[in-house]
């Protein structure tokens, strides 16, 4: 059954020395006989492995585990294919690519699916499973970071007591495992945010935007809901899981593909924070209602902020036209401004206001303001009296970082707010 009449020739590198032998090749039973001058080697056909072809079309074979290489010149390949049809099937390499590519695509889709659906779904139950004292410690750490990058406003005892009183009323009606610890910081943008463990940070710019203590109560209630429902913890868990899995997927790479994946991840995390905002709004209204605070104030405030954001955007856009007007410092910040507009402010604040307005309509309220006039006056004056210095050692660094992260257009917003407010 052996010995094909036509002679198949090739070259053989034996894997032990650098010598290269001219050989003839034949199939003898279940073996491939390789014969050269002073050389006879048998390879078992079932252990043969086809390596990638050379660019000139030469076929390269080896036996599994061997360093030796048998190369068959392109003109001889056809006659060897008749003897070893399965091994030399020309479609095999292409099928291998398809199978590998398909498997990897499926794996990547699985990981992406987990990142986009599994992880967000898991993050809330997981956040609730985190022991309260662990979250508390994390909160202290986050608070420390915030303290580095912001100046604490000199808050009078009256003002802090007013804040704490409101926070206490909200805590009584929430089922938050953490006390709410609000404070006011000096910053160039209107914002309020919750940290893990009960810290609520409000910027003086935001207080300036407020027309009544009821609105402050609304904002506090919203942040309180984030804390009570451990949204911040969930977001941190999500980001952590995201970070780990994303690194697993893309490695430390900075290639084009890696950057695409990172951008996708960023957009994804923004999408989820919007869901949490809506949930916090709903709970906030519930707290306001139960604590007999003005449930309409939240909608009032959103509507006003919508106008502020629109002004900011208009200023930003106007700034891009002129040469000497203030423009966003670089493409990254500009992209951030765009994301801000698309994902947070423009459509969203209006929708949130409308939703809050509709929900508040069904809620009754005694008409009692959230704070006494004197208390509100004390709060309104916070930061105007003075700013207590953060550590001077980190001050320069802080300023630099603050400049780097300051969103586009806040400069105008600041000026606008100053002009309008005083």
């Amino acid at each position, binding site marked *: 059954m052996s010995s094909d009449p036509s002679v198949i020739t090739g070259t053989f*590198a*034996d*894997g*032990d*020395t*650098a*010598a*290269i032998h001219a050989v003839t090749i034949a199939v003898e039973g279940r*073996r491939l006989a390789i014969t050269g*001058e*002073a*050389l006879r*080697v*048998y390879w*078992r056909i079932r*252990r043969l492995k086809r*390596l*990638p072809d*050379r*660019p000139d079309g030469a076929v*390269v074979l080896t*036996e599994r585990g*061997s*360093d*030796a*290489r048998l190369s068959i010149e392109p003109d001889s390949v056809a006659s060897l294919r008749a003897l070893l049809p399965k091994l030399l099937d020309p479609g095999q390499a292409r099928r291998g*690519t398809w199978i*590998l*590519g398909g498997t*990897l*695509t499926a794996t*990547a889709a699985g990981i*992406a699916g987990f990142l986009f659906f599994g992880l967000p779904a898991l993050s809330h139950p997981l956040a609730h499973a985190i022991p309260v004292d662990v979250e508390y*410690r*994390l909160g*202290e*750490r986050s608070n*420390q970071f915030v303290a580095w990058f912001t100046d604490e406003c000199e808050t009078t005892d009256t003002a802090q007591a007013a804040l704490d009183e409101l926070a206490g009323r909200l805590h009584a009606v929430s089922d938050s495992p953490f006390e709410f610890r609000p404070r006011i910081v000096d910053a160039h943008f209107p914002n309020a945010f919750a940290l893990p463990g009960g810290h609520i940070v409000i910027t003086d710019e935001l207080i300036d935007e407020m027309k009544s203590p009821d609105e402050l109560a609304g904002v506090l209630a919203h942040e309180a809901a984030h804390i009570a429902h451990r949204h911040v913890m969930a977001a941190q868990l999500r980001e*952590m899981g995201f970070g*780990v899995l994303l*690194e697993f*997927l*893309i*490695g*430390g*790479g*900075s*290639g*084009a*593909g*890696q950057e*695409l994946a990172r951008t996708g991840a960023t957009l994804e995390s923004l999408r989820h924070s919007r869901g949490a905002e809506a949930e916090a709004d709903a709970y906030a209204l519930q707290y306001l209602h139960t604590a007999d605070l003005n449930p309409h104030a939240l909608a009032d405030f959103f509507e006003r902020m919508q106008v502020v954001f629109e002004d900011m955007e208009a200023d930003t856009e106007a700034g*891009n036209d002129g*040469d000497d007007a*203030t*423009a*966003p*410092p*670089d493409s990254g910040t500009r992209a951030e401004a765009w994301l801000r507009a698309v994902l947070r402010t423009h459509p969203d604040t209006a929708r949130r206001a409308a939703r809050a307005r509709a929900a508040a309509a069904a809620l009754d309220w005694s008409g009692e303001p959230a704070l006494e006039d004197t208390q509100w006056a004390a709060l309104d004056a916070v930061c105007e009296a003075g700013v207590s210095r953060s550590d001077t050692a980190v001050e320069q660094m802080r300023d630099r970082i603050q400049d780097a992260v300051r969103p586009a257009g806040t*400069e105008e917003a600041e000026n606008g707010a100053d002009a309008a407010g005083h």
Partner: protein
Amino acid sequence: MTDETGEAGTSAVPEDAGTPPQPLPDTAGARRGESLVFASSATWGGIAPITLLNALLNIVTLTLWRFWGRTRVRRYLWSTTTINGIPLEYTGTGWELFRSFIFVMIAIFLPVYALFFAGQLLLPPEHFMLVFGVAYIPFLLFFYWLLGIAMWVARRYRLSRTTWRSIRLGQAGSANGYAWATIGYALLSIITLGWYSPAAEMRLTRRLWRETFYGDRQFTILQEDEGLAGPLYPAFALAWFSGVIGYIAFVVVYMALIWPDLASGEVPATPTLMMIVKMYAALFVFFAVVGLFSLPYAAALLRRKAEILGLDDLDFRLRAGFLSLGWVYVVNLLIIVFTLGFGLPIAQMRLWRYVFNRLEANGEIDIETIRQNADRGPKSGEGLADAFDIGNVI
């Protein structure tokens, strides 16, 4: 089912292994030396389909394909590179790279991440900054040490997966020693304002190559300590001073560009768009000047690395000139920029081709007496390098 204990003859057994080669028409001398001629036949046409397929698959697999893609690029470059007409072979697989990456992620990345997180939770807030500050230097040192390890280990992997005439290359020596050497040399370079870096570069090259093997033959360094980097210094001085002059030029150009803004007395708190554009323009001038004057050093480095190398009676020469190398670099930069990075294999091919078409060997070597390298190299490779984003080299 595998029938492992089949008939004998499953491995290569030359019939009369003990006797010398047949007396062919050849000089009767004991050694049959030949010189080496290097050539690369890699082309755009050959690398472009690989590049395109890699780009597509990297996108749909969210970059998981990169291990296999890199392997294909190497396989092409190696197989189109011939020495005396016989091609190199790259024997590595994507699976080996992938496995190594996963291992590194689990064994190194995860513990470091866990350590950070545990530190955040367990350290009392008031001491956190202190601990963070104290731990920073050792951590940085560890990071750079790991980087050195990654480079060494990746090189060992690539060499062990490179064969010519079925004989492997290999790297011996110590990864740890190399890693500490990179740290020490980096510090010396900083202290000397960069003037040590040519010596550092050559010493690291020497450290790697004198522990490099082809089969059972070890590469030698023809130039020991004295004057190892000496010939590099004129070109380095040019690059160094161009850096200083380029910086001054940068400041001058930048000031000239923004002078109208300054003269008008209206300096906005945040820079305007035009100021940014002007700064980038000045920065471009800076890099163009420094890049141009650094080319002679880059070419000299390539030449010097080749000429200190020896293997048996061979020594090497690389005909690298700064204009030709500059052309390769400039076009490569354009390729990478205009393909958003996906064209990297084409750029790699052009540099690879440049080196192997200009590499020459003098002297002779008796190739047929070279025996296989007993060291098979690591079972998997480059995971650490990939984690540090230095894996995608050829």
